[in-house]
């Protein structure tokens, strides 16, 4: 019973924190992209 409650709380927690994790991942991606752009600035237009 306790295990079921634990799993349920985990599911709720994951659901509530999904937007935060998604935004965090997106920010990390943007930061890394900017670093790589700085590293290889040679763009021909």
């Amino acid at each position, binding site marked *: 019973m306790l295990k079921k409650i634990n799993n349920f709380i985990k599911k709720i927690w994951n659901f509530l924190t999904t937007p935060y994790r998604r935004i965090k991942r997106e920010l990390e*991606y943007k930061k890394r*992209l900017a670093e*790589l*752009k700085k590293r290889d600035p*040679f*763009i021909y237009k």
Partner: protein
Amino acid sequence: MVTKEKILLIAGCSHTAGSEIDGNEDSEYNRKNSYGGLIATELNRRPIHIAQVGATNSGIARQVLQWFHKEYDPATMNVNVLIGWTEPTRLEIPSMSHRNYESATTNADWYDKSANDYYRIIIGWDGGDDEERSATPLLHKFMVEHQPFLEYQCYNLILQVQYLLQLHKIPYMMCNTMPFFLDNIDSVKNLIPLIDSNKYYQLGKKNEAFFPKYQLLGYVNEKAKYWHHGEEPHKLFAKDLLKFNKENKCLKK
């Protein structure tokens, strides 16, 4: 007995092509005054400058492979090879359409036309046509998240060319114009010892790659629109490579 012509085959990207030394993306003057051109003069070898503006490492490897396949004549040529490897995150994707990258590489002594069968994915470029624009966002994501894959592939390319040149007993020297960054993960760490460090200038030393080295030293090329180095860094880099050559006897006079 036929006297063989002494040649220095020079492969790489825009840095090796001497881009923007005189302000132009490509010119005879740039090629002659690039670090490779200066080394050819010093060694009394005719430069065959095949570096392409905007090249990727897979493109650079192919420049060498295709030149040997199509042009090399061991009966009349005494060839040495100088290769400047570039930024490891650049990708080439095979395409059914043909691009015209030759329009940016106007002064190569020989142009590897196979480059036009691919499109290039460079981190700051969103693509020029529909095919590129539709593929680029996903590939940028891949480049950002899978840098180890891209770097170990570059080491594989280096080994591919190294073994080709060793097989044909061709003297050669390699260097980095842009640095590789990962040497602390096993997939890369296990490959590096396979590379002959006596033929590779400053292997694994990030700040010794041509572009960051002289950028960190404060050199700015006022004529450049795209940040490429001017005449002085090329001279200094050629001097360093020649010193390395003297110690390790990579290229012959």
